[in-house]
């Protein structure tokens, strides 16, 4: 059975970067690499899952599988959480760095990315998919 790559978006609330991270993660897991990736829920990762399951399943997955964190801002919340509970993530994607390469694509708001924002999310998702492929090739 193939091992999967965990995708964990910062899922931040305050900035549009958090919304982009969520949208890009969803595109990778649902459309681009559905067979090789699994979405890890950042809040669940922090909370540790259900008590009856020992509260560990998301964290254990990241311990035993390569995990890509997607950061919506410079706080690096996803990376910090993975570092804290499961060890070093395989790689980290910074939304801001990619967004700066496409200044013409301006997301509408954190509630609604709009057409430009969704285009940007697709581009970010492509970058994540490339990292997923690299991780599979390096295995």
């Amino acid at each position, binding site marked *: 059975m193939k091992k999967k790559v965990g995708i964990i978006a910062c899922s931040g609330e305050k900035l549009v970067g958090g919304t982009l991270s969520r949208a890009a993660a*969803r595109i990778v897991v649902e459309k681009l690499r559905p067979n090789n990736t699994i979405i890890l829920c950042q809040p669940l990762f922090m909370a540790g899952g259900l008590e009856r*399951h020992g509260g560990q399943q*998301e964290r254990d997955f990241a311990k035993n599988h390569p995990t890509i964190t997607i950061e919506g801002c410079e706080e690096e919340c996803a990376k*910090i*959480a993975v570092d804290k509970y499961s060890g070093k993530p395989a790689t980290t994607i910074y939304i801001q760095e990619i967004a700066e390469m496409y200044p013409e694509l301006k997301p509408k708001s954190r509630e609604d990315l709009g057409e430009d924002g969704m285009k940007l999310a697709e581009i970010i998702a492509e970058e994540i998919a490339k990292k997923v492929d690299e991780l599979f090739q390096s295995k």
Partner: protein
Amino acid sequence: MDKQLCVLPCNGLDKSLGVIARAVALNLIEKKPDFNLICPVLLNTGDEKYESNLRESRTIVIDGCMTRCATKLIEERNQKIYKRIFIPDMSKKLKIKPGTSLKLSENAKKLAEMIAKGFIEELKVSEKEDIVIVAKTERMDFFDITVDKFYFQVPKEGYFFNENDCWIKPDSNRALIGITDYLQNQSSDIMFVELPEIGQEIEQFDDVGSFESVKTVLQLISPGSGKIVAVNKALEEHPEWMNQDCYQQGWFAELELKDFEEDKELLMDGPEYFEYMKEKILKEKELLDKEKED
């Protein structure tokens, strides 16, 4: 109101309910810009501004699913929850199904708006504190298996199982029945239950009731025969107990057994069911992986 209000949503991403929790929070902030929005992930990194906001304000938590991530963040800090919004309860109350998409659907958008609007109305008339129900359950030993990030448990003893992934726990001439961890995992967040009538006579493998989740409607197929003598009425208020604690608090009905020795011939014990379930999960995973490859 003399104290500032903070809004802390769970912001979940692997279920539609978390996506709706986030949308409710954004709706609340849009309608009440004086509320403080707390980013749960940034809070977890130890952000001092948020910590002090939480200490000095009253907190509204919004939980998408029964894992209660937002509630846990507050409990960890030994702080009090002023109000709690639980999306499955609200969906049931407002009769709007949340759907399964991780993208905010039109229905989900409508649900989020209605929850936020209703909540603000409610705030105006009531300041009663919510009570978070915590139930105590006995300790049990389990067989377990993790597939990808999904975790499945089967009690080692005391329970018997049918191939429909339902359990029966006999105790003298009575028995509790319910669904297994596998079935609750398959169904995802359970939102409605339809319990059987007390007094109803049932045969083994009869359909004794149903439960509806964000994904599907499923039947509970009785592993035993007899008469229904009790039902877990609390599930009507807390269907999520079938997910949270399917082997104890999430029991479905109680039977007065007809002939359990005969029923048992067609059932599996804990170790047998665990092997059966494991094989089923691994086969499904292989099929799913193959389907995605094609």
